[in-house]
């Protein structure tokens, strides 16, 4: 669709505003992998409620907006190997690197963090190579 970039920009501004609220109000970095990962490995035990409430908002708003769209096709792969390998790599990789697209990308780059910029360069490069390899050479995705 031609308006995709406008909705991308609108959505981006909403995401950034969410990050600004989390930072200025609660003093926290809005990084999805950190918020989830802290619940998984117990390092976020002391702020578990805050993390769970944040994630409830992440899940609930799409539920409220969904009726306006009727249906949303996420074009997700139904190849179990692709999905399971992808999930494991995203989970372990983001925790090992202490951040993902929201933490290193949005919150890191916006404060000119060298770590955020380096992480973003590496995950975009790895993502691009993976898509080209698995789509154009192997035909898996």
């Amino acid at each position: 669709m031609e308006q995709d970039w406008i909705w991308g920009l609108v959505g981006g501004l909403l995401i950034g505003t969410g990050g600004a609220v989390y930072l200025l109000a609660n003093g926290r970095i809005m990084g999805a992998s950190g918020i989830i990962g802290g619940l998984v490995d117990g390092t976020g035990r002391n702020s578990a409620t805050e993390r769970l409430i944040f994630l409830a908002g992440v899940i609930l708003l799409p539920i409220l907006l969904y009726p306006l769209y009727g249906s949303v096709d996420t074009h997700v792969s139904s190849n179990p190997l692709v999905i399971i390998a992808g999930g494991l790599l995203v989970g372990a990789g983001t925790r090992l690197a202490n951040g993902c697209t929201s933490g290193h990308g949005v919150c890191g780059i916006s404060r000119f963090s060298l770590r955020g910029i380096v992480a973003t360069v590496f995950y975009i490069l790895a993502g691009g190579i993976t898509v080209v390899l698995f789509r154009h050479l192997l035909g898996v995705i």
Partner: protein
Amino acid sequence: MRLLFAFLAGGLFGAGLFVSGMTDTAKVQGWLDVFGDWDPTLAFVMGGAIIPMAIAWRFVPGRRPLVGGDFPAQVSSQVSRNLVLGSTMFGAGWGLAGLCPGPAIASLSYGGVWHWVFAVAMLAGMALTPLLRVKLDRLIVAD
């Protein structure tokens, strides 16, 4: 108040991921696929998100968070082995499935069974990371 703001921030994050189309794996992979029918949307999402955050960071020095406490300390600027290795692994998984942690959660209500399989695998990967860190430190001298 802290919980109210957490819900507001999460809600804005979820709404933004939804309306931007970032839970559509085809749009993410379409942006990463520079040799295919390139989709520029992700760049607008990133750019749009960085603007309010960059403004927010300007309010941090010399102030305290609204609900009290302290702002996160300036973390080390050191580029470590785990940062590079982890980000490369993350990028590979992101390219394979077209999902990163935020959209993986935002899409759970409507994405169908494969989004749940992805989420469970992602949580398993996160749970295994402390072990992976130990193994890596034995294998290669840290930093």
